[in-house]
């Protein structure tokens, strides 16, 4: 049976990992290549590199880092952040990305999804959605959760998948940063309307949160988190051992 994936996310700014402060046995936790390599050794099933830089020069620095990581780490790499065109797909795929996640770029221009899927295949296109409850429905938010697009998240995700997204990352703004567990209600709603893999993001504060996620929603494909791993609150290896003890299949 396919195993549940555990995916650390590295936010990279000016060539450094943001948030990385306490990773056991690693002297320079802000070095994205070193941190990525340590995660891979620890049993990460995939890695997400999120580019939060703004300028053109910094973008070059980001792709250099990506290339260095991809030369040494032989697990799937997803890149997100600043993906607005098929040219952006090309830029990161050439440097070793396997999958590319679109968020604001697809909101601004929804044709980006079918264009990229036609050129690189659906398996390459990840739809990343930041969603939040508004008056009893889930809305898609933009700019790190500051702007309500007014789009209904379930409709947006359904359309995105119909137009070629091969995977969905659902980040709940309501649970993000709270560390009290994933947004099971929102994840269940999304999981019920698509057949592509759904990755849960936002809210992981402990190994128990991942256990709850996979027990409550057995169809969820993966759990993504950043700070819980960066701060060394739980190692990926220990998390996977805990999941296995709980009867959840993982790669160890």
């Amino acid at each position: 049976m396919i195993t549940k994936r555990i995916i650390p996310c590295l936010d990279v700014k000016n060539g450094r990992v943001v948030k990385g402060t306490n990773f056991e046995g690693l002297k320079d936790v802000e070095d994205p290549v070193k941190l990525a390599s340590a995660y891979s050794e620890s049993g990460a099933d995939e890695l997400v590199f999120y580019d939060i830089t703004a300028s053109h020069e910094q973008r070059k620095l980001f792709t250099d880092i990506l290339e260095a990581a991809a030369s040494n780490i032989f697990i799937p790499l997803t890149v997100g952040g600043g993906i607005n065109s098929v040219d952006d797909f090309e830029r990161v795929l050439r440097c070793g990305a396997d999958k590319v996640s679109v968020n604001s770029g697809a909101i601004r221009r929804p044709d980006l999804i079918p264009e990229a899927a036609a050129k690189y295949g659906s398996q390459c296109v990840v739809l990343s959605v930041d969603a939040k409850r508004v008056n009893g429905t889930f809305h898609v938010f933009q700019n790190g959760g500051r702007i309500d697009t007014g789009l209904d998240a379930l409709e947006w995700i359904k359309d995105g998948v119909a137009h070629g997204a091969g995977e969905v990352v659902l980040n709940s703004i309501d649970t993000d940063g709270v560390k009290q567990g994933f947004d099971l209600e929102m994840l269940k709603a999304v999981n019920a309307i698509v057949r592509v893999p759904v990755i849960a993001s936002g809210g992981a504060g402990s190994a128990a949160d991942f256990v709850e996620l996979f027990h409550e929603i057995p169809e969820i494909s993966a759990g993504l988190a950043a700070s819980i791993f960066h701060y060394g609150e739980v190692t990926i290896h220990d998390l996977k051992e805990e999941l296995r003890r709980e009867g959840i299949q993982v790669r160890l």
Partner: protein
Amino acid sequence: MIAVVDYGVGNLFSLKCSLNAIQEEAIITRKEEEIKAADHVILPGVGAFGDAVRKLRETGMFDVVKETAASGTPILGICVGMQLLFERDLEFGTHEGLGLIPGTVDAIEPRIPDQFDVPHMGWNPLHYTKECALFRGLPEQTCVYFVHSYAAFGCDAYVTAEAEYGIPLTAAVQNGNVYGTQFHPEKSGNAGLAILKNFCEL
């Protein structure tokens, strides 16, 4: 020398890096003489079968790969590169493959239970159905990375490993010197590197 067939399909960066990591000299090429002179040939691929087979023909690689296989050189098809080894596929109409292994390629969606996602994406343990040199030294239930929506069917006699996904999916095949993996060894961590190394040592 290992020749990775470059026919304009897929991202060859990781494959090249993983071969470097196991100290194998590899060239990415579409030159007939280089492919025919290689000790080992790898046929990569992602995306749609029809598109891949069209590009294989347009670049002249269709016949080159067939002839190289006939000469006895070990060939490894990866993902869509593996699917191309079969006789035909049923994706967007019927396309003729290389015909190096009997069997067909078809969508997994109508064949697997509803609760299983499509694409089949992630790390799935392997169940070995037959002894195969590719898996030498690797324990039963070794996890490798898959991402595909189509798979090979009707090729039982050639299957060397399966991945359980509601039904047993063809994970690896062999017909003499022709090998194929539905999964991506270049993305399967140390297990994947070991599989590539085993192939390079054939």
